[in-house]
């Protein structure tokens, strides 16, 4: 047995043990780990989550039994103070000695506290361990009791910002003080820093840049920071997060070589100047550098493990990747490669900055336009994985490299990378756990894993920051497909069917309730928030059930027939078909809105929305609306919203046809019908297109000789113009085609898939849809029309249903044992109306 002693019990120490325990040679080793902290290794990267409800146990890297289960001896609260290299022993603070064959130094680092006069004052903390956090929390409580809430964090680097978040979570006003003229100076340029600064300032943090602290004010305890430029900042607490110092004392004392500014010198095998002693993580000085990120630390642990297992060639790469992607104070931040052009090459920078959405992206491209050298993403790092792969595997760039951050404009959308399977096998997909594409696909190919979950548990891909998960899923799906195995988009864990299959089952077997469907075709569970509303939608399409029938399986809005808004109140939208409304109806609406003090706004769909109704108020508001002849507008449903119209030939001197009349007819026809997602329509009286019909799910435009019918348009996040389905058709044909089209969509779409996305996925696209709807090649047309006309004939206003039935009315009260309303609802004035108080 070879005795391995590990000094230090942080993340890298744990990773070393985990990797060693996973080797086939592990039985030849006996491992003892010493940590000076009282608990097992924990996740320091997410330390601030300790204040948002995570416990020390949640942050722990391993379960309580892990060390024992793997025969690793763990000594917590035990500090090793001496190494005797001749005897090959270490000794603890009480003089007890332990022998070793191999010694692993994973002592980590301590917070660097700059020698500013006054740092010894009460109220000054460092941010490193759970104990530090506990001390900060109790001091924060004390000063808050005295009415003091200002606190500063010294250091605007990655750790400093994470720390500022922790200070904010303590209920204090956090000020970030940074010496450099920008935040995260090691990772970000000025533009990125400015964007990050404005985003975190929006969240109530304050940033002070280019500030050099001269001394700390106050007598016994800190009262403020005095800067050299004669300004000051009054604070009652300071957390220093100005960098790290490697813990190299013990190595220094036993004569191992250390750097002039600290750090245990190692070669690229992670060996110190003593053959039997390795140093890994933040205490190790490799290439004259300390690497303060966890990913290179894990790589070092891997190399040390391989060295111990006689793989003497194993070595750290020459260039160590410092790319990072994380969420800081709610903002996505990523930087990769040579983001700041530290190599001082001739490069081209491409920058995209959008202050309105808070997004900043920069990429550095080689002068010849062939390679991506590095980049920065703020506010939206969703392209990080793809960009990192392009950088890391030196892939050929597209003709217009700006497409990498702007997306390709015009033509097919598609992903940045093209096909994930085109990546080389050694492309690193998960950088936290160093998992390559070859390992992920290999796990499926050799049968080690059968699905995504299996791949994650055997390769650990995606278990670190989780940023690579979408790409891991794509790779798993693509590999399964290449092996001829079916990749099924099942609804959720409760059904092994997709929506279309379940649709056919419910229809064929005539199933009537959620329980019937679940008991006869489920996997044995009790359902969830995914399958319940889906089945509700099927019941509505197949049996014309309204949302009142089984209200506990309805989605949030359908359950109470109103749109739930930010503070848990609801908005109320009566139908105003085609946007045509009489002055008397406006007066009626006005009287009701005023009576209940509702915030009132005109919607984009040409109707009127009342906000701020409590659950208890909904029935009486609706009773009054119904009395005045209004009915539900289904603004809350996955159903037809509005058919928007321009004024048409009735008034407009350019109008070719009566767009308002036709819009009303269509809205009345399809109102109340539930669909996989919401649907909108539009009717324009001429090609000037004032009704914006081509951004609707169905839109018609009057032309010479009839109507042009367009389908599958979308506004929203991915705007898309509707495509032409048929030209110059009469009113009757328009209705016939829309009937067929909508019913075909309602039968075959995936859950929550709008028509535009549905058409995107429909094999054959618009040409195929024309065959089905116009040419009737599937012979389905008659059936689709019949199904639609049944739904049309069975329409009932569900609000009328509800207010007429005392049993149904029971659900519209905040408490079942009291008539009180929710007393936590707070409104503040807004212009001449009101709005909910902001989210804390």
């Amino acid at each position, binding site marked *: 047995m070879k005795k391995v002693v590990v000094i230090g019990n942080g993340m890298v120490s744990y990773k070393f043990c985990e990797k060693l325990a996973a080797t086939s040679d592990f039985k030849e080793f006996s491992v003892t780990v010493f940590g000076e902290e009282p608990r097992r290794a924990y996740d320091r990267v997410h330390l601030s989550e300790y204040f948002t409800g995570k416990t020390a146990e949640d942050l722990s890297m391993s379960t309580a039994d892990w060390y024992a289960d793997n025969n690793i001896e763990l000594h917590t609260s035990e500090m090793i103070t001496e190494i005797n290299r001749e005897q090959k022993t270490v000794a603890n603070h009480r003089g007890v000695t332990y022998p070793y064959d191999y010694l692993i130094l994973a002592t980590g680092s301590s917070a660097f506290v700059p020698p500013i006069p006054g740092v010894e004052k009460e109220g000054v903390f460092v941010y490193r361990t759970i104990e530090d956090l506990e001390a900060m929390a109790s001091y924060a409580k004390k000063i808050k009791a005295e009415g003091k809430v200002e606190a500063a964090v010294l250091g605007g680097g990655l750790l400093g910002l994470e720390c500022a978040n922790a200070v904010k979570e303590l209920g204090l006003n956090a000020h970030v003080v940074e010496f450099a003229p920008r935040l995260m100076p090691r990772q970000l340029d000025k533009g990125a820093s400015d964007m990050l600064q404005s985003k975190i300032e929006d969240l109530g943090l304050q940033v002070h840049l280019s500030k050099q602290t001269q001394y700390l004010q106050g007598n016994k305890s800190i009262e403020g920071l005095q800067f050299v430029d004669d300004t000051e900042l009054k604070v009652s607490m300071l957390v220093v997060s100005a960098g790290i110092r490697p813990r190299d004392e013990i190595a220094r004392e036993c004569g191992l070589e250390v750097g002039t500014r600290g750090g245990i010198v190692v070669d690229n095998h992670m060996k110190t100047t003593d053959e039997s002693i390795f140093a890994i993580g933040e205490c190790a000085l490799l290439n004259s550098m300390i690497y303060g990120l966890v990913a290179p630390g894990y790589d070092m642990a891997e190399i040390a493990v391989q060295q111990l297992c006689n793989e003497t060639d194993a070595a750290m790469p020459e260039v160590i990747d410092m790319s990072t992607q994380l969420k800081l104070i709610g903002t996505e931040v990523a930087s990769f490669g040579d983001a700041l052009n530290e190599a001082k090459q001739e490069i081209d920078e491409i920058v995209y900055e959008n202050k309105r959405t808070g997004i900043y992206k920069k990429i550095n491209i080689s002068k010849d336009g062939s390679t991506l050298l590095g980049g920065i993403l703020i506010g939206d790092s969703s392209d990080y994985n793809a960009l990192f792969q392009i950088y890391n595997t030196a892939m050929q760039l597209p003709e217009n490299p700006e497409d990498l951050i702007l997306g390709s404009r015009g033509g097919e959308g598609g992903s940045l990378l093209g096909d994930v399977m085109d990546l080389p096998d050694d492309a690193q997909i998960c950088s936290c756990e160093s998992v390559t594409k070859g390992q992920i696909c290999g796990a499926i190919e050799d049968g080690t894993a059968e699905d995504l979950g299996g791949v994650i548990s055997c390769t650990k891909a995606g278990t670190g920051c989780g940023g690579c998960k979408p790409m891991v899923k794509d790779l798993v799906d693509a590999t399964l497909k290449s092996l001829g195995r079916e990749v099924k988009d099942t609804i959720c*864990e409760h059904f092994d069917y997709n929506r279309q299959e379940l649709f056919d089952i419910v229809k064929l077997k005539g199933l009537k309730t959620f329980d019937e469907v679940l008991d006869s075709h489920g996997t044995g569970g009790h359902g969830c928030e995914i399958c319940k509303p889906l089945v509700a939608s099927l019941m509505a399409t197949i049996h014309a059930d309204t949302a009142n029938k089984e209200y506990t399986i309805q989605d*949030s809005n359908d359950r109470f027939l109103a749109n739930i808004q930010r503070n848990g109140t609801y908005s109320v939208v009566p139908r105003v078909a085609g946007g045509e409304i009489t002055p008397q109806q406006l007066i009626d609406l006005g009287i009701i809105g005023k009576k209940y003090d509702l915030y009132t706004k005109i919607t984009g769909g040409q109707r009127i929305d009342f906000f701020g109704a409590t659950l208890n108020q909904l029935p009486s508001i609706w009773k009054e609306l119904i009395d005045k002849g209004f009915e539900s507008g289904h603004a809350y449903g996955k159903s037809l919203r509005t058919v928007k119209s321009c004024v048409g030939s009735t008034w407009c001197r350019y109008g070719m046809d009566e767009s308002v009349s036709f819009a009303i007819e269509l809205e009345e026809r399809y109102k109340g019908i539930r669909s996989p997602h919401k649907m909108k329509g539009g009717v324009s009286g001429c090609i000037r297109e004032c009704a914006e019909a081509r951004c609707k799910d169905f839109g018609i435009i009057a032309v010479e000789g009839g109507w042009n019918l367009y389908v599958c348009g979308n506004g929203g996040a991915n705007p898309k113009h509707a495509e032409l389905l048929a030209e110059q058709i009469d009113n009757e044909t328009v209705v016939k085609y829309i009937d067929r089209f909508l019913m075909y969509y309602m039968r075959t779409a995936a859950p929550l898939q709008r028509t535009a996305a549905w058409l995107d996925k429909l094999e054959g696209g618009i040409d195929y849809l024309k065959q089905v709807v116009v040419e009737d090649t599937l012979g389905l047309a008659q059936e689709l029309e019949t199904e639609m006309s049944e739904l049309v004939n069975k329409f009932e206003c569900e609000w009328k249903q509800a207010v007429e039935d005392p049993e149904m009315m029971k659900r519209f009260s905040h408490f079942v044992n009291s008539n009180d309303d929710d007393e936590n609802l707070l409104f503040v004035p807004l212009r001449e109306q009101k709005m909910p108080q902001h989210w804390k």
Partner: protein
Amino acid sequence: MNTMLDSYKTTPLDQVNVWFEAAKISDFPKDGGACIKYKNKQIAVFNFAREGKWYACQNLCPHKMEMVLSRGMIGDDKGIAKVACPMHKKTFSLETGENLNGDLASIATYPVKIEGDSVFVGFSE
């Protein structure tokens, strides 16, 4: 705002000192929930009829501090009974209160007992 969260503490059965008669069984929908008021607390009570069980938890969702959990859908996550907040579909175990699809703080849970046609919720005070 945290003080509102602080007022909800998980109450294990052996710490129950008060069994509060909340409402009748028929006041709660099958496989759904409703909210009850106890002193200044809002408690979501769920009739998990498919399992033949009852659950109670705070009505306050710790994500955005809205009193809405009783209006959420219930179901199970690999056998663990859960509720999904109607606001952003954060899901919580009805057994332990743990946030199942994120890193939010756990919610407080309370024991429920049925006597005759009445539903009682247990509190320590």
